[in-house]
């Protein structure tokens, strides 16, 4: 068949036999066990599962914040085990955008300055950085709040600023750990609508952890984790 002749695109994220074990004193606590996973470029994937099932741990491995005990983590064709701490920092700056549950904005910086932070790691000029910041804030609909600081904004607005920060470098991969966990229904919907835009219009690869079934519905694909095992 001719369909077989077309090679499938290489996955954005590939996990092979990944396990993670934490050591508490003399006791070894297995958190992830033999996880095999592939996420295609441009996919929107959600992970669900009970508290403590290892969702955040899995996300940390994919985003290069943590290393597996065994197995291979490959992102955008790169085996992350090959990178040292400094190279991993540079790699994250170039390839990953982060959205945290508690936004993790810097309260003494304005929205624009917060969004600009990841751009300071690129060789862009000040004028170019300004343009990118403006564009990112425009995507999240906060162009009118550039000069405002996080304490002057609602939780939903802060999370949208954080999303602007995650997309401003145009990363391959956007990682979101319970991005709506601290938001009310309406603000959560706004954030999820934005994720839809990132997915459909900007063709970003999105990996999200959530407890919220409404949020998971927005994803193309939902994986369930149970005691460290992918169902």
């Amino acid at each position, binding site marked *: 068949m001719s369909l077989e002749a077309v090679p499938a695109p290489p996955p954005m994220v590939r996990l092979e036999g990944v396990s993670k074990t934490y050591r508490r004193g003399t006791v070894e606590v297995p958190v992830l066990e033999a996880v095999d996973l592939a996420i295609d470029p441009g996919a929107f994937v959600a992970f669900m599962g009970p508290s403590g099932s290892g969702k955040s741990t899995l996300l*940390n491995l994919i*985003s290069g*914040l*943590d290393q597996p005990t065994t197995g291979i983590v490959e992102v955008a064709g790169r085996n992350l085990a090959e990178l040292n*701490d*400094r190279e991993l*920092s*540079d*790699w*994250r*700056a*170039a390839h990953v955008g*982060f959205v*945290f549950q*508690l936004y*993790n904005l*810097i*309260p*003494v*910086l304005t929205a624009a*300055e917060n969004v600009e*932070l*990841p751009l*300071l*790691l690129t060789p862009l000029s000040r004028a170019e950085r300004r343009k990118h910041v403006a564009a990112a804030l425009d995507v999240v609909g906060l162009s009118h709040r550039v000069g405002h600081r996080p304490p002057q904004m609602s939780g939903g607005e802060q999370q949208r600023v954080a999303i602007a*920060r995650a997309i401003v470098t145009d990363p391959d991969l956007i990682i979101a750990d319970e991005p709506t966990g601290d938001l009310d229904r309406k603000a959560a919907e706004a954030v999820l609508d934005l994720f839809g835009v990132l997915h459909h219009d900007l063709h970003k690869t999105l990996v999200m952890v959530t407890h919220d079934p409404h949020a998971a519905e927005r994803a193309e694909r939902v994986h369930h984790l149970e005691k460290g095992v992918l169902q």
Partner: protein
Amino acid sequence: MVPLFYNARSLWARRLSTGLTVLGLGLVVFVFSAVLMLANGIESALAAGGDPANAVILRKGATSELVSGVERDAVRILATDPAVASGQQGEPLVAGELVVLVALPRGEQAMNTTARGVEPESFTARPEVRLISGRRPRPGTNEVALGRALVGSSPDATLGGELRFAQQRWPVVGVFEAGAGAFESELWADATRLGGAFNRPGYSSALVRLRSAEDMAAFEKRVEADPRFTLEAKPEPTYWAEQASGLATFIRVLGLFVSFVFSLGAVLGAMITMYAQVATRIAELGMLRAVGFRRRSVLASVVAESLMLGAAGGLLGALGALTTRWLHVRTLNFQTFSEVSFGFTPTPGILLGALLFGTMMGLIGGLLPALRAARLSILDALRA
């Protein structure tokens, strides 16, 4: 690089602890620079004293009159030098002088005072020494004149009073001033009477007034080369500058030592503040590391913040020290130098040193907190 305004605003956000830390650093820098300015002031005040046409003769190698000795014969020989100026009666303006310490009662205690045995030429050769009351002591008697700083320092130290030392009585017949110089804290008596009372047949030093300051260099060489004695001559201003530099160095060393000890406290303060800054901003630092800032950038950021604290302290201390320019210290009682008036003299070097000192304290205080911030595990920091 993490932008510097992030650090500046974070410091401003906790302005109470920032302010107190800067104040602590500033106080240390203030002490540091004020002491250096004081030592400077002493040097310039005392070095200003003395007449360039007057030569002080000391035993070769003696650092002060107290440890010097000059034979009576040597003084007679010096008087024959062609460069020596003459007084109104044609007498050579050369005076042998004897310097001893006498103990005058002050309350329960005794006060060490410099007594200078003088000859009439001692007054003639030093026009800056002027009687402000009474008269000069008559030669060959126990009469004394007091420097005005001594008046009232001891119960009998007044015009018309009678001092007792070396088992003799010494009536006070005059009080003199000496342009705020060190002589104002001396008592002057007849050199021969004082020598007799203290069993000292010779002099400590000799004062030689030359016709002109231009003769000084040649005169110094002749004294140096004369085989009849082992003496050296130096211009009076040089002698006083040397005396001042000893005192100034002492103040400098003491001041630097005190500053160093205080600085340990200030560095500790900066360290505590920076640890608190890091602790309250762990989640922010974790975010910065997650989005790709290297450990080194976080380290540099915390160090930069601490440098800001230190520089602010340095600036505050230096500005504070500058205000002492308008202060004048009139009484500083040292063993031999009492009642000298001098001010705090700033120099660009001292102000630069103050800024550097403050910045240095910031740097040292910030190092450990910065290392801690750089070593944070990203995951632990993000969980905070």
